[in-house]
C-alpha cells in the first residue's frame, strides 16, 4: 500500500484555499520568507478520502471488534456523544471568550460547572479541576498539588510511594513532579504489601499513589490500614482512578479517605479513545487541597452567572491552556446525564460480572496468579503455556487477532510474568464474551497440540509480527520524499 506522498503529483490540488491576490507575498518582507519546500503531498480530495478510508479499514476498533484491552476500559461509545460535542455552540466557541465576554459563553461554562459537581459527587470529593488532558496529566497535577500542600505547611518532602503493580505513568509522574519514587511490592493477595509499606513510610514521604481497584483488578482489602498509616505521616493519599469503572456507586475515593483522585473520562465515561487519545484526566480533591487546585476555575455567582476565577493565591497555576479537552468533557457529561445514578451503578455491576465470568471460565486453561473475585478485569499468566509449549502471551495475543478479537493487554502489570490482562467492560454481551472465551480455550488447547499454529499467528492480517528491534535500530520515522 502506498503512502499519501507516493500519490502526490506536482500541481495537483486538493482543497482550494481561496483566491489569493497576485503579489500578496510582497506583504511579507523578503528576509522573513520561507525558502524551503513544505514537503506536503499534492493530491486530490478523492485521493485523500480513498487513502485514509482504506487505512481505517486496516484497524480493529470497538465499533468493529471486541476489544478487551486491560486497564483501558474499551467500552462502547454512544454515538450521541459525538453529535453533542459537535454542536456549533460548543465546537465553534473560542476559549478566550471566557476571558473577555463570559456572558456570551454561559453554556460552555455551565457545562463545565455541572460536570465538575457531578464528578465531585461520584468520587465523594470536595472540588474538581477539568484541566488535565489525560490520566497521566492528572497524576502530575496531583503530584504538584501534593508539593504545594506540603510547601504551604513548610515541609519539603522527598518521596512518593508507588506499589510496583502501578501503571508506568504513576512513577513517571511522581518523578516529573520532582519526587523520588519508593516502590513497594504486592503481597500474595495481589495488593500493596501493607507491612512493607509501614516500614518504608516516614515523614519524608509526600504521598502514596494507589490504583483502586488496582491493576490486577483487585480491591485492596486493607485499604483502611493504608489510609491510617499514611495519615500518621501527613502523606497525601492519591488515588489513580483509571479503574473507577468498577466501583461507581459502590465505594467513593473520598469516603475511603483519599485526598486526590484522577479519573480517565475516556475510560469510565465512554469517550472514544481516538487511536490513542484525546482523553481527559479530571482531578478531584478533598477539602484540604481545594485551595491549591489549578487556576482558573469556573465559578457560579449568586446571580447565577458562570464565570472564571483566578483568585486562588495558593493555586499551583494552570496545567492547561484552558479548561482541558472540552470536547471530551461534553461527551462525558452527555453520558453521565443519560445514565444517571442507577445507570452508573449498573455499569459497575455489569463490568464486574463480565470480568468474573471470564475469570472463572478461563482459570482452568490459564494460570490465574491471584485467584480472588476480581473487579472490572482479571489478569491471567501464560506461564503454563510458556513452560510446557513455549507459547508466550504475545503468541496468544496474535492468535486472538487471527480470530477477530483485539487482544487483552499483555506483559502488564509487570508483577505478573507473561501477564494477560482482560477487561471486557460492561457493554459487551454474554454472546460476545462466550465467543471470546471459546477462542481463548481453543488457543490454550492448540498451544498444547499444535503450538506452531499459535506461534505463527496471525495469518489473515495486512502484516504479521513486524520486526520491532529493527524499527528501533534503523529508525525510519518519516516517509521517503
Amino acid at each position: 500500500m502506498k503512502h499519501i506522498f507516493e500519490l502526490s503529483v506536482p500541481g495537483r490540488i486538493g482543497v482550494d484555499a481561496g483566491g489569493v491576490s497576485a503579489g500578496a507575498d510582497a506583504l511579507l518582507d523578503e528576509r522573513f520568507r520561507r525558502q524551503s519546500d513544505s514537503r506536503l503531498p499534492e493530491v486530490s480530495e478523492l485521493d485523500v478520502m480513498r487513502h485514509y478510508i482504506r487505512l481505517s479499514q486496516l484497524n480493529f476498533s470497538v465499533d468493529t471488534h471486541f476489544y478487551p484491552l486491560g486497564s483501558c476500559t474499551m467500552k462502547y461509545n454512544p454515538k450521541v456523544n459525538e453529535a453533542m460535542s459537535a454542536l456549533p455552540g460548543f465546537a465553534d466557541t473560542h476559549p478566550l471568550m471566557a476571558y473577555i465576554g463570559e456572558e456570551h459563553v454561559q453554556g460552555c461554562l455551565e457545562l463545565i460547572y455541572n460536570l465538575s459537581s457531578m464528578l465531585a459527587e461520584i468520587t465523594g470529593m470536595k472540588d474538581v479541576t477539568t484541566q488535565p488532558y489525560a490520566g497521566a496529566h492528572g497524576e502530575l497535577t496531583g503530584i504538584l498539588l501534593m508539593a504545594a500542600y506540603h510547601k504551604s505547611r513548610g515541609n519539603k518532602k522527598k518521596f512518593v510511594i508507588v506499589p510496583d503493580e502501578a501503571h508506568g505513568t504513576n512513577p513517571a509522574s511522581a518523578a516529573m513532579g520532582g519526587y523520588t519514587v519508593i516502590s513497594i511490592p504486592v503481597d500474595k493477595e495481589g495488593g500493596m504489601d501493607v507491612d512493607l509499606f509501614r516500614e518504608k513510610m516516614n515523614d519524608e514521604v509526600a504521598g502514596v499513589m494507589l490504583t483502586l481497584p488496582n491493576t490486577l483488578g483487585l480491591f485492596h482489602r486493607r485499604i483502611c490500614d493504608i489510609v491510617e498509616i499514611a495519615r500518621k505521616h501527613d502523606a497525601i493519599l492519591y488515588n489513580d482512578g483509571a479503574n473507577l469503572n468498577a466501583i461507581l456507586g459502590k465505594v467513593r475515593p473520598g469516603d475511603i479517605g483519599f485526598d486526590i483522585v484522577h479519573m480517565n473520562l475516556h475510560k469510565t465515561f465512554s469517550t472514544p479513545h481516538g487511536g490513542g487519545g484525546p482523553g481527559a484526566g479530571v482531578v478531584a480533591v478533598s477539602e484540604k487541597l481545594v485551595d491549591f487546585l489549578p487556576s482558573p476555575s469556573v465559578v457560579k455567582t449568586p446571580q447565577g452567572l458562570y464565570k472564571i476565577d483566578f483568585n486562588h493565591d495558593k493555586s499551583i497555576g494552570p496545567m492547561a491552556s484552558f479548561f482541558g479537552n472540552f470536547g471530551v468533557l461534553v461527551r462525558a457529561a452527555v453520558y453521565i446525564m443519560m445514565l444517571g445514578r442507577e445507570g452508573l451503578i449498573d455499569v459497575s455491576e455489569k463490568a464486574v460480572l463480565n470480568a468474573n465470568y471470564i475469570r472463572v471460565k478461563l482459570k482452568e486453561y490459564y494460570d490465574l496468579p491471584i485467584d480472588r473475585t476480581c473487579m472490572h478485569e482479571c489478569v491471567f499468566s501464560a506461564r503454563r503455556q510458556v513452560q510446557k509449549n513455549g507459547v508466550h502471551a504475545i503468541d496468544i495475543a496474535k492468535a486472538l487477532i487471527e480470530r477477530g478479537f483485539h487482544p487483552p493487554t499483555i506483559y502488564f502489570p509487570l508483577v505478573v510474568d507473561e501477564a494477560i490482562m482482560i477487561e471486557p467492560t460492561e457493554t459487551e454481551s454474554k454472546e460476545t464474551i462466550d465467543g471470546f472465551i471459546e477462542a481463548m480455550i481453543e488457543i490454550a488447547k492448540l498451544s498444547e497440540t499444535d503450538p506452531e499454529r499459535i506461534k505463527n499467528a496471525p495469518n489473515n492480517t495486512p502484516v504479521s509480527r513486524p520486526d520491532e528491534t529493527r524499527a528501533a535500530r534503523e529508525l525510519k520515522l518519516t516517509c521517503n520524499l
Partner: protein
Amino acid sequence: MARFTPHTDRDVRQMLDDIGVESVDKLFTDIPKNLRPESFDLPAGKSENETVSIFNDLARRNRTDLVSFLGGGYYDHFIPAAVDTVSSRSEFFTAYTPYQPEASQGTLRAIFEYQTMIAGIAGLDYANASLYDGGTALYEAIAMAVRTNNRKKVIVDAGVNPLFKRIIRTYVINIDVDIIEVDLKEIYTDTDRLEAHLDENTAALVVQNPNFFGIVNDFGELFEKAHTSGIVNILVFYPISLGIIKTPGEMKADIAVGEGQSLGMPLSFGGPYLGLMAVEKKFVRKMPGRIVGETVDRDGRQSFVLTLQAREQHIRREKATSNICSNQALCALRAVVYLSLMGKEGFRNTALLCLERAEYMKAQLKKIKGVRVMDGQTFNEFTAVLPLPAGDFVDRMFAGGFAAGLPASVFYKDKDSHLIIGVTEKRSIKEIDDYAAAARKVLS
C-alpha cells in the same frame, strides 16, 4: 433511561449460576461495608431524546453569531468537511493506542505520515505524535533541553504566549529549573536583551514566532550565538504561518513546538487541541510521546510499529522521558488529513490569505481617527492601540456582533489600550469592512 449494558435478567442469572455466585452484590464483598457511599446523589437517567434537548439548550447559550477576530494563539481557520469524514470513521476514533501492529496498521500509517508532514512544515528532521497542547509541548521541550545539557536556567522571551508561560511555571514549582522572562520593548521581542541573558548556565532559549503581539522575527543569528554556548534553541511556532514564513529549521532551532489547533481542530472552547513537536536529528531519542517507525514483518512486508518505546513510562517508569501515555492521536489524524487536503499549494495560499486579510484590516483601521496600528512585520495578527481601554472597545463591539479581538491587558497589565486582532482566511472582505464601520461608530 439510556442503557448500554446488554444484559437481560436471564443473562445475569445464567452468568452468576455459571460462576457459582449467588448475586451481583456478592462480587463486591471485598469492599468493606463501612466504606459504602455516604451518598451518590446524581440526577435520574434520561433517554437519548431527552438528553439531546438538554444539550441543545446548553449549546444555544453560547453565541454562535459573532464574527470573530479573536486569536491569541487559537484561530478560527477553515476546516474542510472531509476532515470530519475521516476522523469520524469508527475504525479510527474507537480504536486505542496501536500496541498491536497487526490490528492497527491504519492508525500507524496515518501517524507515520503525520510525523513526516510535521517535520516537513517545520523544516526539521523528526516529529513525534503527539503531545497535549502547545503549552505542555513547550514544557516537554524545556525538559529535553535540561536533560541534554544538565543546566537549570531557561531564558524565555516575554513575547511567548502567556498561556504557555503560565503552564511551564506551574510545571517547575517542585523541580529546580529557573524560568527567566526577558521583557519586550513595548510589543517587540528584544533580541539584544535576550542575547545578554545567554551564558554557559543557560539550558534553553525560548522564543516564539510570530510573538504574542503578532510580530514576526528571524531568530537565525540569535540561535547561532546561543549554540556557541551550548544552549538548546526552542522555537514556538504557529503552523499555519509556516506556509510562507521562515521555518524553525531554516532558523536552526533545535526543537520546535507549537499549538496544532489550527490544523483542522475546531476551537471547541479549549480542546481537544494538539501539541506539536519537531526536532533536529540528534534530539530524537530524547523526545517524549509516541513515535511510529517503519520496519518489515516476518514476510518482509513493509510494516509500521510504535518504536523507541524504551523512552516511555510503560517501560522506563520513573526514568521515562515523560509521563505521557494517552495523547491527542485523533487530533493528529485530523491534522494529517487537513495537511493532505491543503497540500503544498493550499498550505501556502492559506497563509497568504491570512496575511493579505490582516493587512487589509490594518489598512481599514488606519483610516480611523485615534487608532494607531503598531508597526513591524506581522502575519495574521497584529496590535492596534486604541483611544480607550481595549476592554471597553471589545464590550461595545459585541453589541455589533463582533468578537473584536484580545485586549492585551488580559495578560499584560500595563497594556491597557492595546488590542490584538487576529484575521484568518475565513474572514471576508465584507466582514472586515463591517468591522471597521462598527469600530468607527464605537470610537466616534
